[in-house]
């Protein structure tokens, strides 16, 4: 197994507040990793650092050996919490955009997934509901054959059917050469899908272990353990 993400003493400060403290983390290809923590614990900060949307205050972050930059962005597929596609675009415009900028984008796969949802690609994004827009983004992101997928709160605020769709899409597109990071605070919904979990609390790494290991050792679910670690 080769390492895809390596963080060393990674720290991010905003002015006087520290969002991430001295984080050391190493993730391997082929794993589905849950990045877990309450809101404001530093999950999004870590994901933004991986994607070069923030610059570390100190420490290093390497994706397949590259610091965040053009080379890393070629192999990282990022689903932010935001709906980042411009409203005026048709679904097909968005597909062309991804096709042009990402060499690993599989156009055929994207259209297949759209068909599966009975989504007409000539529709404008403006005309789609928020939930559908999020699905289109997920399809675009998962249609890339990336080495690292960063999904920031993909199941936050969606109904159970949509959640199943999202999880199915993630599993369907799984490949052993890629690592998938899923950040969420809704652990019970996705813990069976995860191979590993990372707990972050107030900017500190609390735990990084395999799910089965935790269940075997602690005899409890990740969700119960989470409730213990983060008890208010």
């Amino acid at each position, binding site marked *: 197994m080769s390492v895809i993400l390596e963080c060393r003493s990674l720290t991010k400060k905003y002015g006087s507040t520290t969002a991430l403290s001295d984080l050391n983390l190493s993730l391997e290809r082929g794993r589905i990793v849950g990045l877990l923590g309450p809101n404001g614990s530093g999950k999004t900060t870590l994901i933004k650092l991986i994607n070069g949307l923030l610059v570390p205050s100190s420490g290093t972050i390497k994706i397949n050996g590259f610091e965040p930059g053009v080379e890393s962005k070629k192999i990282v597929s990022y689903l932010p919490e935001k709906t980042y596609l411009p409203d005026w675009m048709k679904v097909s415009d968005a597909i062309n955009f991804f096709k042009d900028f990402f060499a690993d984008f599989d156009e055929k796969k994207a259209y297949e997934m759209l068909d599966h949802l009975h989504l007409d690609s000539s529709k404008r994004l403006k005309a789609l509901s928020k939930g559908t827009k999020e699905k289109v983004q997920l399809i675009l992101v998962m249609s890339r054959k990336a080495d690292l997928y960063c999904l920031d709160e993909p199941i936050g605020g969606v109904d159970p059917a949509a959640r199943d769709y999202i999880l199915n899409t993630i599993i369907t597109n799984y490949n052993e050469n890629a690592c998938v990071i899923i950040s969420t605070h809704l652990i019970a919904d996705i813990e069976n899908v*995860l191979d590993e979990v990372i707990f972050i609390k107030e900017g500190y790494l609390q735990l990084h272990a395999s799910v089965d290991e935790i269940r075997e050792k602690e*005899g409890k679910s990740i969700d119960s353990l989470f409730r213990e670690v983060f008890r208010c």
Partner: protein
Amino acid sequence: MQWELNTDKPVYLQLVEQIQAGIISGIYKPGDKLPSVRDLAIKATVSPNTMQRAMTELERDGLVYANRTSGRFITSDEELIGKLRKQYITQVIQEFLDKMDLLGVNLEETISYINMISDNNKK
């Protein structure tokens, strides 16, 4: 096959148990071809790695065998399945009896209850 996963046991063990149950109850017949790991993982909504691990466990026990080119199959070894069936039934009943014991119900009373309930079910 319906997958029901609870939360406190390792997921791969639960998958192993449920596939075993499927074999015993005949949902999976001897010699049947199993769906791919990915498809099974999607159905059960678990990580493909976990499903892979469950398959490895089942292969180790000889209940499932892999053919390099054509996929995975349920064993045709009826004797092995019979043994598994016996093991499984024993385990379920043992757990039940342990529970009854905890409730302070002795074996005789338990058996009389079983008879009563099965008579009612027949009617």
